């Protein structure tokens, strides 16, 4: 049994208590997407502003548990200032970290391969602080909490840069 400290790392609780980039952005110029976790009713709103292929601003709103809210906060700091292409690589690396490697627990993990890995590997992507979320994998029902804001970010980018 994984202990609660594996799940609730200090950096996660810090992002939960002091969320970064919290709030709304004007739409347009920002694009907005809403993600739901039908399991628990969590709701994340992601605003992202892109200029010349670079994410110049990002903000998150909504409500949810410490894992979904801290993950949204950490996501916002991780993607700000990066190119859309870099961010897509980062999302892939993050979701790879958050997947239960082929352990076959149905319906709890996010699909790793919803985007085919077309050679632009993720091995060189540095996750940094995001690695604190790795402990969530030991609590499969919470994986969707951690990936909610990331999937919502992808949703926003896909709607604009499909």
């Amino acid at each position, binding site marked *: *049994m994984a*202990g*609660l400290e594996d*799940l*609730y790392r200090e950096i996660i*609780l810090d992002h939960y208590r002091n969320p970064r980039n919290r709030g709304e952005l004007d739409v347009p110029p920002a694009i907005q997407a809403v993600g739901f976790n039908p*399991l*628990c*009713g*969590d*709701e994340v709103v992601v605003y992202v502003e892109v200029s010349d292929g670079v994410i110049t601003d990002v903000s998150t709103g909504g*409500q*949810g*548990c*410490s*894992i*979904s809210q801290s993950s949204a906060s950490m996501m916002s700091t991780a993607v700000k200032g990066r190119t859309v292409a870099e961010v897509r690589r980062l999302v892939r690396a993050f979701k790879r970290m958050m997947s239960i490697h082929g352990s076959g627990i149905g319906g709890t993990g996010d699909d790793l391969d919803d985007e085919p890995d077309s050679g632009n590997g993720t091995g060189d992507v540095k996750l940094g602080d995001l690695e604190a979320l790795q402990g969530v994998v030991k*609590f499969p029902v*919470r994986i969707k*909490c951690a990936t909610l804001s990331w999937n919502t970010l992808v949703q926003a980018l896909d709607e604009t840069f499909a």
Partner: protein
Amino acid sequence: MSAEGDPRLGTGTRADFPLLGRQVHGRPIIYLDSAASSQKPQCVLDAMNSYYETINANVHRGAYEIAARATDAMEAARAAVARFVNAPSADEIVFTKNVTEAINLVARSWGGANLGPGDAVVITEMEHHANIVPWHIMAAEKGFELRWIGVGADGQLDLSNLDRLLDGAKLLGVTAMSNVLGTLNPVRRLADAAHDAGALMLVDAAQFVPHLPTDVQALGADFLGFTGHKMCGPTGIGVLWARAELLEAMPPFLGGGEMILDVRKDGFLPNHIPHKFEAGTPPIAEIVGLGAAVDYLEGLGMDRVREHEVSLTAYALRTLQDRYGPELAVHGPSEPACRGGVLSMSFRDIHPHDLSQVLDDRGVCVRAGHHCAKPLMRHLGVPATTRASLYVYNDTSDVDALADALGDAGEFFG
């Protein structure tokens, strides 16, 4: 009876439930999620096993001994269920997959034949999605209006404009007991009002039948659905009770084997009730298991079950209030006699998902989420709650364990 639960129930029945003797995370299981699904007593598991080991065969039409005995076992369970809810006839007991299917059957079959533009169906803001979505689906198809009875103070229905809502309505659908608030709704009064307005009364009794003596005739219901797995029975088996004349007039729901008298190339003749609504091979072992669950609950006595839960709910409300005061809100009626043992809690600003995670670490099984009642969650102004629910095998030690674990969660999230 003691002031804190019936000793013959709670502690006295725990040994009947094998799962409750197990451990999780190295701690005893404290099971407080019976509103989602109850545990199963050994006698139910034995009845299902015995069916498979001794008389397993498809029911009806088999001309050999074990097929006849399988049919007898299934029909004996139907009779037991009819007796349990005081149905006038076992022919009025339709076996479904669960209460969700029971309500979908009514919406699709009765609704499909009787509802159209200009008609209205009235439901309440505290319904489970199972008594909302089937009506949304049929309203979109048939063009009738869906009207809502709101929730007022203390988790009770706001019946101030009931007459206006029922004006022109053809059906009133109400949960007998809220799966979130525990509210026991005034079913008889609502049924009388519905009938006065010319509407039929559908009762979602998923949370009621397992916990209180049920008399479909005294309740004044026309349709009443419940589910086996919340009342010590197995999953995969539910019940629709409906007045015989309604079932007779309703068109079939699913088509296939068992539900016909005759099939020709140009059509079919439906079977008599209840078989008209039971297409295909039924879940025979589950039906047998449900019959055993009914026997088990009758052995405990539903009056005693109710008394036990009222006193345990009172103990829980008092304990939580004493320990956490205004930091912990229990949604729903404050008076134990007006509610069931469903305690939907909001504790400080700790998200229910986080709260239930810490509780799980302490072996306490509760449910976090919207409990399939999103309109009610919006009314309450919360995204989710943490719900603890009580049943025949719970006692004060479970409530104390919950209270202790809440304290741990409070410390963890500071």
